[in-house]
């Protein structure tokens, strides 16, 4: 499912890299000068989005123009004003899922004014006009490019830079390129913002492992803490990479932070994904925008160990089937929210803080026991540390399955697969680790073999890496789900590779030499010290 890599592409997972994104980022970062990364993010991403919808508009425009002026085409229109009318008819665009872009919002128009001091205001107007013409984008686009604090010369240079984003090869359309640039920039902003960056961006390799494990081919995909929408983008990529169509899955999401929600809306639009993220940003606990949704796949990275999640108002909620979550930690409120939204054969992949696997405080242990005893937990994966921008602590993945007897796979009731991936991954810089393609393939392949996917091969316990365990055994461990407890210690193989007899032969010869050498040295030392006259 990885995209074709170009030569010299080292970091295949940190975003869809094709080299030039990095260069582009460098250039964009230079123009940032002393602006806060969190603020600059909206400026840059807004412009990329504008360029994207303008480009797709132009592409459609050229296409229609060719058709209407070609006498052989069934769309042929003879009269020039009639041609114009067709070209300027918004429906011709919306029908093809292309946003209608009014004249003042087209990139060519803005590019022409890039050097003007009014460029900020012009961009704001462009955004307003687009929103007017496309209700689906209402309230989504950033509109404060005209503010005094934004250096207009820099902004002009940025317009030039984004305008210069060209298509690498003829096959890939500019839309795809912009989509990738958008995602790459998201990841870079997440890194630049550090701790706060984790709120809107889940590292690509973590998203990829969730997608690879669950393999969401078709059905409803739900992320109630969707951030900038990375889970959906990856799910769609997965579907397309496996010969499916975008429409095979439908996307439902929710995000509580309104600026992040806008990033997500743009991210989906730029990828041509039709998703339901609700009409506004909202908190999934207090204001569930998809109350009746039963999802086939839930992929989610909720905030870790969230403290104030508004529990007091929700004491009697229908979602708390396995116990009332503690008021100072939302981990098990999230968990039960997900379970509540799972369809009868639905599956979920959840990123949570490690504490969720073993905590026994404030009733969390009881909730976990109830969830385990209800046979919802399918697989647990312990991740290495330093994967996230927001925190250095290691996290884990929970995979839930509503129906573990589901005949798509092997009947695995009252069994849990434990995978310990703590030693996997490579450091990509001083503070960040990434899982490699091989790591992801190995983890997902192990799960698929265990659950009995077609063609996934035979599953086998591997000491130190994976273990299939019964609920009885898990109960004996007090329902602690830490994989390290179950997988045991890795067998160091090279030690055993040498047969006992040969090993002893080698070691004995070594010892014999050392003893000989030892005698030699003893003689020398004795004689040396004798020379110093201390041996009397």
């Amino acid at each position: 499912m990885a995209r074709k890599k170009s030569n010299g592409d080292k970091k295949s997972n940190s975003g869809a890299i094709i080299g030039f994104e990095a260069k582009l980022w460098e250039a964009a970062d230079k123009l940032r000068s002393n602006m806060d990364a969190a603020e600059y993010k909206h400026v840059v991403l807004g412009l990329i989005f504008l360029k994207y919808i303008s480009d797709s508009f132009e592409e459609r425009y050229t296409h229609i123009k060719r058709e209407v002026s070609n006498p052989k085409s069934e769309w042929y229109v003879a009269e020039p004003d009639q041609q114009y009318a067709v070209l300027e008819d918004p429906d011709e665009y919306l029908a093809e899922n292309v946003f209608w872009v009014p004249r003042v919002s087209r990139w060519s128009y803005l590019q022409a004014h890039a050097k003007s001091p009014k460029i900020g205001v012009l961009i704001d107007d462009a955004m307003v006009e687009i929103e007017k013409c496309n209700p689906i984008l209402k309230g989504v686009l950033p509109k404060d490019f005209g503010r005094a604090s934004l250096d207009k010369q820099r902004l002009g240079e940025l317009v030039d830079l984004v305008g210069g984003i060209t298509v690498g090869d003829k096959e890939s359309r500019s839309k795809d390129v912009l989509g990738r640039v958008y995602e790459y920039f998201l990841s870079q902003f997440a890194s630049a913002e550090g701790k706060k960056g984790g709120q809107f961006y889940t590292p690509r390799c973590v998203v990829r492992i969730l997608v690879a494990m669950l393999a969401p081919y078709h059905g409803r995909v739900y992320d109630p803490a969707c951030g900038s929408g990375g889970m959906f983008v990856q799910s769609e990529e997965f579907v397309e990479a496996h010969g499916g169509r975008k429409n095979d899955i439908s996307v439902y999401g929710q995000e509580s932070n309104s600026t992040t929600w806008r990033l997500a809306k743009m991210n989906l639009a730029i990828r041509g994904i039709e998703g339901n993220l609700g009409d506004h940003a909202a908190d999934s606990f207090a204001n569930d925008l998809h109350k009746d949704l039963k999802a086939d796949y839930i992929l989610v990275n909720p905030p870790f160990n969230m403290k104030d999640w508004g529990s007091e108002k929700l004491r009697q909620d229908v979602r708390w089937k396995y116990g009332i979550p503690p008021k100072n930690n939302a981990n098990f409120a999230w968990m039960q929210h997900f379970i509540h939204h799972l369809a009868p054969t639905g599956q979920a992949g959840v990123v949570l803080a490690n504490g969720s696997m073993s905590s026994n405080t404030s009733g969390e242990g009881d909730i976990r026991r109830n969830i385990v005893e209800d046979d919802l937990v399918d697989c647990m994966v312990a991740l290495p540390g330093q994967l996230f921008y927001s925190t250095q602590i290691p996290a884990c993945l929970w995979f839930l399955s509503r129906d573990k007897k589901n005949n798509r796979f092997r009947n695995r009731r009252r069994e849990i697969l434990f995978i310990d991936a703590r030693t996997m991954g490579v450091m990509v810089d001083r503070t960040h680790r990434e899982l490699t393609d091989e790591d992801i393939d190995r983890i997902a392949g192990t799960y698929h073999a265990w659950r009995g996917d077609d063609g996934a091969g035979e599953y086998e316990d591997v000491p130190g890496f994976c273990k299939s365990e019964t609920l009885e055994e898990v109960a004996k461990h007090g329902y602690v789900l830490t994989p390290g407890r179950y997988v045991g210690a890795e067998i160091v193989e090279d030690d055993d590779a040498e047969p006992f007899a040969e090993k002893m032969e080698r070691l004995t010869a070594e010892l014999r030499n050392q003893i000989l050498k030892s005698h030699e040295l003893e003689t020398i030392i004795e004689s040396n010290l004798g020379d110093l006259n201390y041996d009397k």
Partner: protein
Amino acid sequence: MPDLPTPQGWEWTALSDIAQLESGHTPSRKHPEYWDGDIPWIGLKDAIEHHGKVIFDTYQHVSDLGLANSSARLLPPDTVCLSRTASVGYVVVMGRSMATSQDFVNWVCGKKINPHFLKYVLLAENDALLRFASGTTHQTIYYPEAKAFHVCLPPLPQQKSIVHILKALDDKIELNCRMNETLEAIAQAIFTSWFVDFDPVRAKAEGRQPEGMDEETAALFPDGFEVVDGREVPKGWTVESLDCNIEFMNGLACQKYPPIDELDSLPVIKIRELNNGITSNTDKASKSVPLKYLIKNGDILFSWSGSLQICIWSYGEGILNQHLFKVSSELYPKWFCYLWTHHFLEDFRSIAADKATTMGHIKRHNLRDAKIIVPPMELFSEIDQILSPLIEMQINNAIHSRTLAEIRDQILPKLISGEIRVKVA
């Protein structure tokens, strides 16, 4: 430097006149292509681990490109390196061409000075070097100071004789260390084959003669298995908990026993001492602690928290601190206690690593859950004759090394200053 009279024939020289001073540098970490090349690159960690020794390889390596794009230079073998910042005073000699970080001052020795002699001078003058270091947060020896170093040198032949004496001691210490690794590996191999893999029993069950033992010993092994407590063990052997007949005695909180005076004090053995032995940083406590906490050479010590480790103590008398177990048994020989505990070390480490708390540790019940296999007594005494000497020799070597190190430390300053004169061989 020291205000001793200059011995006859010796001469004070500016070090920079007879050795070329070189600095080091760190290639940019932003360029992965600068790293993981073929050129060893000495960092502080390397120097600390190889203090006073010749170094042949390092933790990190740089590439030709990395070297070209930094002010680090490739220095020839026999270059003497002194750490000059953060951890000041560690000395190593390059065994092959290497580069260093900027944490070092390096001397490429000319014809008038033997590199090993320079190494011993730097070792002998360690305290003086620390006085040259300045800076509040990071003690640093700056290059101008390093340039100003003077050494009092005897003629080259005499340098070589002095080096010869000291180096023989160091070589023997190093050899003891390697010999102990071999002895340990032999003991482990035999133990694993006989007690874990049951190779001799398997051989007999298949009608073969067990490898590597005489017929008398082979006769003591059974020729089949039986199931005890759900596991397959050699016929007549028993299964028990690790802590059933082996005592794991926890140390005590030594701060409750402050020493009254120097005479009353003994070093406190903590996890750090398991690694580094007794150093000037080692705490002291009063001898009046209950007798059972007094540790002597040859005792097995096992740290059950932090980085779990097991070792046989060889740094002389001391007091056992908490977080360390003394492992002993009235019934079993030392090797049996040591090797079985060692066998479970990896398991214990992974249990400790799973603890969510900051410092991982194991609990008593983990010892109880660890099951060991015990052979019948007549076989025990036979195997004891084979394994006991392997362990005893290790202890003996380690103690021997301490003595050698003490002798070296005593004569080093005297040889280097010319206070003791050596005949030129």
